């Protein structure tokens, strides 16, 4: 399977592997460094490529320079040679060594000893050859001082000339003339052939001049040297000739060669007739001159050619250099241009992307080049347009959704406001209901307490919420006894309030049946347990007090035991059985206990709302605190004592939220002297006057509940006649024109109560005055009826109504009083010493 990988897939993979190192390098370099790297590589390559060219041209130029120096040296050497060969031909008599010639030779020798050649010149033996020339020259000079023959002189001259010729050849080699690529034959001619010809031409003549047979033959044989030189001379001349041959070199060479021919003819002639030697001498001399001239002309021509070559080389050097610099400049210029252009494009791309990211969504990138970056810019612009379009769509959708949401919110807000208003109204209603219920709850609890010569009693209940679960009660029993109780329904709120109302009614009803306290609690427990759907329960302590002897019978159903403070200030917890609270389960029995209140003793009944009242630091008021207060407080009157207790608890609690209902009942048996004083104040009273029922009503000492902002509506006094009631009714109707319903109820109640008072209280006495006063506050209507009858409480003394019986059969007053209690919110009767005071309260709330 793997062998079937197509070649088109393998090839890029191979290329990517080959290019991996370059890619790696490229990935680590910024754009500027990439360009710098490639440019540097190219420039270095260019320099490396052109370096050999420049070097070759430089070497060639150097060589040409060297060769020119060689030609200069050659000219010097040729001059010395000319001198030497001419000297050899001179006769002994005409020998003349010019100082100039000698100086030339000395200069040549000095040069040869240390030729001062550049390092590029090949190694040479010039110093050795110079030394040889020096020696030969010295030998020749030595000969001059000796008497010697011509042949020795000739030989010495020839040796010197040979040394010079060798020096000339070596000089040519040392100046690289022999290896010149284009002028090697020319230089061979100049450094070797022509000097040899010059030497041979004169030597031929000089040898013949010595008239020696042996030398003569050599002079003839020298023709071989001359004829052998001819091809080399032609070859050398070929290299020197220019198309125009201004110097006429070819002609000079031809002339020389023809002259050599003529000299040979002359030599042949001398062989035949030695006297013609004289003819040879000028020929040879002229030929030497010709050869010398050719040498000089050829040297000049060669030097000119070298000069030209040198010029060309320098020009080519300049050209290569200029080309190199130009190429480098062009590459650098191109790269800089490409770099700047690419960078500008990249910068535009970068700037555009940044602008786009910064939120300018209408950003578009315009690149005016023809490279791939245009594609990138195009793609960016496409993406930007698409994003812009999508954002517009999203924005549109968002706006639409926003509008929809706003509409919904507005709708819901309106609905909520509506509901809120409804809720508010409902809450207000509930609040009103609760306030009403609270008032009702407060109203059903007795607001007026007995304060007789023998004792005073006071109670209060402060609910923790709108509705409380605590209650108290006090009521008169037969034989002057008083029943009173304090109870605490478990829980708070509406349920507890209802249970409280039920419990109170049950307890009150049972108590009216003259049962013992344990029986009242037992029966109440059975009744409450039987109808207790919310499974509430109530603790209670019920006491029956007999003022005649201060005896106290009591029973407790799970309630805190009563506290007894003796006149001496001692506080006792009255003994209580551990009986269970009411309503828990039926059939429970409760225990009766007895106690005795001495003169000056105080009895306190309370609920745990007092002992468990907490301050801000969660500290409970506690039984200890309560006992302490009770010990301290020496207030004789129950009302003042209770006010003190409530203030003490309130002071302890401070600003803390009340945790439970606060309920207490105080009974203070007055001290003996107080009782006596009071008895003295009522001389009419008989012994049984201590019994409230016997007195007709209890003696009331304190004012009824005070209304705030009371306004007097009606003050009416009538005679104690039934027919007078109609006038009162008219006055009441006038006073309550705004509330005819209330006026109706008030008239009904007044008629009943006044009839009752006239018939039962005054026993029909016709001219007694009865005062009726109507006052109102914001909420309440107060009706006060004052008579001057003996003490009479219609609400206590009136017999219980028998609803089952017919109206005619019922006892007079009982039903009426019941009606009054029903129609009025609060009814109370007092005897203030001068008469009875009936106070009715009727709420004005609808």
């Amino acid at each position, binding site marked *: 399977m793997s062998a079937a990988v197509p070649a088109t897939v393998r090839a890029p993979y191979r290329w990517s592997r080959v290019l991996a190192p370059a890619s790696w390098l490229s990935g680590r370099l910024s754009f500027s460094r990439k360009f710098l790297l490639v440019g540097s590589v190219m420039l270095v390559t260019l320099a490396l490529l052109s370096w050999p060219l420049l070097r070759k041209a430089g070497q060639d130029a150097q060589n040409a320079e060297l060769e020119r120096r060689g030609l200069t040296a050659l000219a010097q050497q040729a001059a010395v040679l000319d001198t030497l060969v001419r000297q050899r031909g001179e006769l002994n008599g005409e020998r003349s060594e010019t100082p100039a010639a000698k100086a030339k030779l000395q200069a040549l020798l000095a040069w040869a000893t240390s030729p001062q050649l550049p390092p590029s010149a090949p190694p040479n033996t010039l110093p050795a050859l110079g030394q040889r020339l020096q020696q030969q020259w010295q*030998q020749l000079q030595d000969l001059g001082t*000796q008497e*010697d*023959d011509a*042949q*020795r002189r*000739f*030989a*010495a*001259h*020839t*040796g*010197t*000339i*040979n040394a010079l010729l060798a020096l000339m050849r070596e000089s040519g080699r040392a100046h690289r003339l022999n290896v010149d690529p284009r002028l090697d034959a020319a230089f061979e001619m100049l450094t070797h052939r022509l000097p040899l010809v010059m030497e041979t031409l004169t*030597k031929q003549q000089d*040898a013949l001049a010595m008239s*020696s*047979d*042996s*030398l003569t*033959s*050599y*002079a003839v044989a*020298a023709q*071989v*040297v001359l004829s052998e030189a001819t091809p080399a001379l032609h070859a050398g001349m070929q290299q020197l000739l220019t198309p125009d041959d201004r110097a006429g070199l070819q002609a000079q060479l031809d002339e020389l060669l023809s002259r050599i021919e003529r000299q040979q003819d002359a030599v042949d002639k001398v062989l035949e007739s030695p006297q013609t030697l004289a003819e040879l001498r000028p020929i040879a001399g002229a030929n030497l001159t010709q050869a010398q001239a050719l040498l000089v002309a050829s040297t000049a021509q060669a030097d000119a050619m070298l000069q030209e070559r040198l010029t060309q080389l320098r020009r080519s050097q300049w050209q290569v250099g200029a080309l190199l610099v130009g190429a480098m400049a062009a590459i650098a210029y191109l790269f800089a241009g490409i770099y700047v252009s690419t960078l500008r494009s990249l910068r535009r791309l970068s700037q555009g992307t940044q602008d786009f990211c910064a939120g300018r969504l209408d950003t578009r990138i315009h690149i005016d080049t023809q490279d791939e970056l245009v594609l990138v810019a195009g793609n960016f612009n496409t993406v930007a347009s698409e994003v812009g379009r999508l954002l517009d769509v999203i924005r549109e959708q968002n706006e639409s959704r926003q509008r929809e949401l706003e509409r919904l919110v507005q709708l819901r807000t309106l609905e909520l406001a509506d509901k809120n208003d409804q809720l508010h109204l409902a809450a207000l209603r509930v609040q009103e209901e609760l306030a009403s219920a609270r008032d009702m709850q407060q109203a059903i609890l007795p607001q007026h307490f007995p304060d007789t010569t023998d004792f005073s009693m006071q109670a209060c209940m402060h609910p923790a919420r709108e509705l409380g679960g605590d209650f108290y009660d006090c009521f008169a029993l037969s034989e002057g006894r008083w029943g009173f109780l304090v109870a605490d329904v478990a829980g708070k709120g509406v349920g507890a309030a209802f249970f409280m109302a039920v419990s109170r009614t049950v307890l009150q009803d049972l108590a009216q049946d003259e049962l013992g306290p344990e029986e009242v609690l037992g029966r109440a427990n059975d009744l409450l347990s039987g109808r207790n759907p919310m499974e509430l329960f109530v603790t209670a302590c019920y006491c029956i007090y007999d003022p005649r002897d201060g005896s106290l019978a009591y029973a407790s159903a799970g309630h805190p035991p009563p506290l007894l403070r003796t006149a001496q200030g001692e506080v006792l917890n009255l003994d209580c059985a551990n009986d269970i609270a009411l309503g828990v389960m039926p059939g429970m029995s409760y225990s009766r206990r007895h106690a005795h209140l001495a003169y000056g003793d105080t009895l306190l009944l309370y609920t745990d709302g007092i002992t468990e009242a907490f301050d801000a630091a969660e500290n409970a008021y506690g039984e200890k605190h309560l006992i302490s207060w009770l010990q301290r407080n020496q207030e004789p009157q129950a009302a003042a004592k209770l006010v003190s207790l409530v203030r003490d608890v309130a002071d302890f609690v401070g600003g803390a939220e009340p945790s439970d209902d606060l309920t207490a009942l105080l009974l203070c048996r007055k001290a003996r002297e107080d009782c006596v004083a009071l008895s003295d104040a009522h001389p009419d009273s008989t012994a049984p006057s201590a019994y409230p029922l016997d007195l007709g009503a209890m003696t009331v000492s304190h004012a009824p509940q005070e209304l705030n902002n009371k306004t007097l509506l009606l003050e009416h006094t009538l005679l104690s006649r039934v027919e007078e009631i109609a006038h009162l009714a008219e006055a009441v109707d006038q006073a309550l024109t705004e509330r005819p319903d209330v006026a109706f109820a008030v008239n009904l109640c007044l008629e009943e109560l006044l009839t009752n008072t006239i018939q039962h209280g005054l026993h029909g006495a016709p001219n007694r005055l009865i005062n009726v006063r109507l006052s109102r506050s914001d909420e309440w209507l107060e009706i006060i009826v004052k008579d001057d009858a003996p003490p009479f409480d219609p609400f206590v003394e009136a017999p219980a109504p028998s609803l089952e019986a017919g109206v005619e059969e019922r006892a007079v007053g009982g039903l009426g009083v019941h009606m009054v209690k029903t129609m009025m919110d609060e009814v109370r009767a007092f005897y203030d010493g001068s008469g009875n005071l009936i106070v009715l309260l009727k709420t004005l709330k609808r």
Partner: protein
Amino acid sequence: MKLHHQHVHRARLALFSLPTLLALLCFTAVQPALAGNELIVIAHKDVALNKISPERITQIYLRQQQSWPDGQPIQPIDLREGSGIRRAFYDQITGRSPGQLRAFWARQSFTGMGLPPRQVDSDEEVTRLVQSTPGAIGYVSRRPSGAAVKVLLTANLD
């Protein structure tokens, strides 16, 4: 070309030298007519050698050896052509005829390869020059009377 001539000459010299010397010895032995005539090779008194072989004399007079063992240049003194003792000297010592010598020196002179020995006219002049020239060597027919020269070789011409 010059080298070629030189080689040829040297070969020839080597071929001729040994029979020539043998013949010279025989000649001296069988020709009593020349008895009493001596050939004496003398040198300057400072020359480092006390005796010399005929071969070395030949090399010196053909200028093939140009310095003494101590490096001093050898100054050979020759007699002019035509002198009897010169002919005898070259005959006996070098084995060369006057014609051969002429040809040899003509070639050497023409090619500049060598300078012929200095020629003087008489024994006396030879002796005088040998005495006065450091490194000089010469040949005379009679032993010089003064002791200012060194006798390197004595050959009997008889």
